[in-house]
């Protein structure tokens, strides 16, 4: 039994966390190569690239929760909405 068996891993959650880890790694490399400059977009605060990623991820979590709690449609639609919102935040926030 693996030392991480207590964590009850599944493939979908492993892929999810690997995706987050890769995203953070990619953003770190990008920050080193092309440091971001804080800017003001449609949000009332100045944000860096990392801030916008954080807002996108947090929003995605809430969009999915709202979709699960309020809508009867498949969750994929919520995922598409979260992705679109993340695009808006990363580009115009």
């Amino acid at each position, binding site marked *: *039994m693996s030392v991480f*068996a*207590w*964590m*009850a*891993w*599944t493939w*979908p*959650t492993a892929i*999810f*966390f690997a995706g987050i880890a890769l995203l953070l790694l990619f953003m770190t490399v990008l920050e080193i190569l092309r*440091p971001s400059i*804080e800017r*003001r977009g449609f949000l*009332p*605060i*100045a944000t860096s690239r990392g801030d916008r990623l*954080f807002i996108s991820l*947090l929003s995605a*979590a*809430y969009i999915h*929760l709202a979709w*699960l*709690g309020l809508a009867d449609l498949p*969750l994929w639609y919520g995922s598409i909405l979260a992705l679109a919102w993340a695009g808006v935040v990363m580009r115009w926030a």
Partner: protein
Amino acid sequence: MHKPTNNGAWLLVVPVVLLVAFNAILPLMAVVNYSVQDIFGPGQAYWVGTEWYREVLGDKRLHEALWRQFLFSGMVLLIEIPLGVLIALAMPRKGWAVSLVLVVLALPLLIPWNVIGTIWIIFTRPDIGLMGYSLNSLGIAFDHTASPLDAWITLMLMEVWHWTPLVVLLAYAGLKAIPEAYYQAAAIDGASAWKVFRYIQLPKMRGVLTIAVLLRFMDSFLIYAEPFVLTGGGPGNATTFPSIYLVKVALGQFDLGPAGAFSVIYFLIVLLFSWLFYQVLQNVGRGGAR
């Protein structure tokens, strides 16, 4: 912007990162894993997808516990932050009295949380407790085990007594860090005490008050030991907060899936509000610039 050229210093952060990874990130990952499975025991877990999330999002008892928690944390912030600042402003700045006041104020912070609950159980007992007996002698029927309002009053008093000193200590540290020249300039301009507070002390306390608000929000939102010992979530469900409900679900009923799903939601709520408080406190009065 000047960037450090020696990135070797980042290695110094590695122990902290490893520590956080083991005591926070790995358990959080495990909770997410539990939240999408039906767990019957070690090695007996079955994938259920988002089923627990749907169940938890529709659970009325959890909704009630959450609203109760928002009310409690809101009251904690509304009472403890202004009270802490007021006490800090009234504290002596020099002399032997400073040490004495600081030690007395810090005493509640040194008491273990479950002992705090026991102290207040005894203190408010109508038969032998100083507060409970005094109130009942005055003709006020006070019993935190029978009346939801009395339970809330006791809980709030306990919370304010326990944690306001932390806000006081932080605010006092902020006040002590203000150079004397600011006060001298204000005196030359003939500024009133209110103007000194509004335009010198309050802005200078921004950093410590941000920490105070974040700590008090997160701690009060995750409160468990004190209400569990004091009221056990009662009378009825009057003081059942999400943490108490979660422990009942996770350890009492061994429903790790729904408990995991709600833990993730609980975490996201704390994360969102902490971020919002941080942004507001950092940006208020600065025209939105960070």
